[in-house]
């Protein structure tokens, strides 16, 4: 467990690299394979996940600690968190559409897709399971989401490059993507030795 006085920087690094949500925890893999054909679209998805994840984990932390715990309703967290995430995505979509059309165009389809991304829910749960304070939770969510961005952009750039390579027929398309992801995961496992949490 992460103790309270742990360095915020360590929390960030742990979420970003050591416990990378995609490559080490294997959460949110559907979008990892679905939206990694091109770097541009993976960047869009990563940006959407980052913005929503940071906001949603802060709000869910507040709801959990100030609403659910006082009434001993911890078992309601899944339902209420999904409620928060779905609402938040809608709100953010409205806001960007109104005040920043360019950003809305850039995020495009990826913003609604975030609603059903399990990584968002996982980040909210993990922050609570680690008993983090509000600030630590914020940094943790930032680290997780940037880890998502990093992993999906790296993966997309490898996939963009790999289609030019002479791949055996049986491995073309998704199989080689699976292999790539597993090798990337092995590489990220190397960060495990950095420090233990």
């Amino acid at each position: 467990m992460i103790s309270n006085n742990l360095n915020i920087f360590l929390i960030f690094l742990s979420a970003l690299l050591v416990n990378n949500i995609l490559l080490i925890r294997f959460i949110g893999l559907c979008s990892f394979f679905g939206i990694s054909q091109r770097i541009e679209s993976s960047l869009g998805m990563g940006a959407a996940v980052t913005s929503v994840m940071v906001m949603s984990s802060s709000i869910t932390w507040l709801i959990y600690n100030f609403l659910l715990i006082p009434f001993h309703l911890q078992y309601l967290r899944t339902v209420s968190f999904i409620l928060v995430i779905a609402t938040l995505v809608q709100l953010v979509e409205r806001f960007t559409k109104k005040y920043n059309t360019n950003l809305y165009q850039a995020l495009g389809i990826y913003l609604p897709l975030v609603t059903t991304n399990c990584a968002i829910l996982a980040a909210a749960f993990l922050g609570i399971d680690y008993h983090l304070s509000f600030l630590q939770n914020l940094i943790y969510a930032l680290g997780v989401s940037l880890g998502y961005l990093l992993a999906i952009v790296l993966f997309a750039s490898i996939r963009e490059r790999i289609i030019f390579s002479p791949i055996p027929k049986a491995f073309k398309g998704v199989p080689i993507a699976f292999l790539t992801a597993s090798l990337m995961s092995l590489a990220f496992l190397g960060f495990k030795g950095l420090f233990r949490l």
Partner: protein
Amino acid sequence: MIASLLILGTLGLIFGALLTLAHQRLKIEINPLVEKVTNLLPGANCGTCGYGKCNLLAEAIVKGKVGLDLCPATEPEVIEKIAQLLGKEAKIKERKVARLLCAGGKKNAKESFHYFGIKDCQAAMLVAGGNLLCKYGCLGFGSCIDACPFEAIEINENFLPVIDSEKCKGCGKCVDACPKGLIKLFPASQKFFVACGSEDKGATTARNCSVGCIGCQKCIKVCEQDAITIENSLAKIDPEKCNNCGKCAEACPKGIIKSN
């Protein structure tokens, strides 16, 4: 039990109210014209107009920031329709089509070495400027095909891209994609063009490729309009003077004055 119902109910109510509020406060007035114009535009989001996406261009057109004919891919009839919608006069630009200035390919252009690298024009170009003796020759890996938003380009059995002049909208994406600069935009009314880009001397071109323009001047002699000139051993047709008679195409000993 009651507490859980209450809390979940209240949360739901609050979020619902928030969404309703957002729906009202953040309402976006969409000009219905913009949507109609967007539907008329090609929808390939190719970005040639400089707006990135078709709906952004539609907005600019409706606001009157730009002319109706900025999009090169819009057909004249469609431009007229847009003009009717907006109550404006339609100005129609001449349609342009992309053409490949090379007739070489596997059969005709000689290789200087075998290339086994990445099957991509840009990558092949990095290795000593491509694997052809003719430094103007099409490498045939089809970077232009990937760039075309209208699927107008196909590669033929001779490993040369063939541009379908019906499907081509003249957006110019392939022009930028070709590392050899072999694709150029021509006015669609000019039927005949010289399918060679080699500015080498005639003898060098003849050595490198069996279908290169050697500057023999036969086309100049048969042209009644004086539309053809030779610059750097390469014949050029002036679209202003050319009357599409096709005599030059018959006279060309290499058969590289083509029409489409």
